[in-house]
């Protein structure tokens, strides 16, 4: 049986709906997410391990885990 190869899942921010509150940055264990210039949250996919803590915390629920190719 052939194994299906999946890409790693990482946090993805729907930037237009982000309120830049920074709740995500507070819970990230890898310090992979930060608020860029008070406008939106930005994820450093090199650091993100896809744990989903930020997605769970986000009060606007604008973060989701997606398969992302670096």
């Amino acid at each position, binding site marked *: 049986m052939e194994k299906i190869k999946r890409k790693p899942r990482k946090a993805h921010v729907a930037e237009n*709906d982000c*309120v*830049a*509150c*920074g*709740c995500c*940055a*507070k819970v990230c*264990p890898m310090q992979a997410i930060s*608020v860029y*210039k*008070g*406008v939106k949250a930005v994820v450093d996919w090199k650091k993100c391990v896809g744990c989903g803590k930020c997605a*769970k*915390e*986000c*009060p*606007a*629920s*604008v973060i989701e885990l997606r398969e992302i190719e670096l």
Partner: protein
Amino acid sequence: MKKKWYDYLWLLSLTYLILGFFNILFAWLGLLCFFIPLIIAFVYGTKSYCNRYCGRGQLFSLLGGRFGLSRRHDIPQWMKSKAFRYGFLIFFCVMFLQMLWNTYLVFAGTADLQQAVTLLWTFKLPWHWAYLGNAVNPGAAQFAFGFYSVMLTSTVLGLITMVLFKPRSWCVYCPMGTVTQLICKVKNKE
């Protein structure tokens, strides 16, 4: 992660709410929650206040998160829409101006001091015990009552959405958050 000094600012927010029960003049301190975020946004172009120092946000995340007083459901789509966020900001500002107008009337001597806290812009709660006499101009006391009304109303709204949705749902439609984000957007476009 090691806790920093600013992780305890929720204590200040809580103290502020409690002090208002004993002496309404403490309500003036709430202006800090208005000016600090604005100054940070104007000078540095960031939302550091929301991100780090907001005691109210910390209080909600403590009650909703640690104490589990939140259903942790997704906030409805319309509540995070730009229309609702800006609409709420405008409504909030109009109500604030009305409060300032009432304060002005008391300062000018055309209206009497109302020793009441107005909750959710509608319900007048008796609050006379927190007014300890004529040490200050009645206008200054009127502002304190009005400002405490604003702070208590927003706390109640925040608590309701905390229970219904996620702990810090208030942050989605917080007027200060909306306005500082707007400032940052304009400032960082230059």
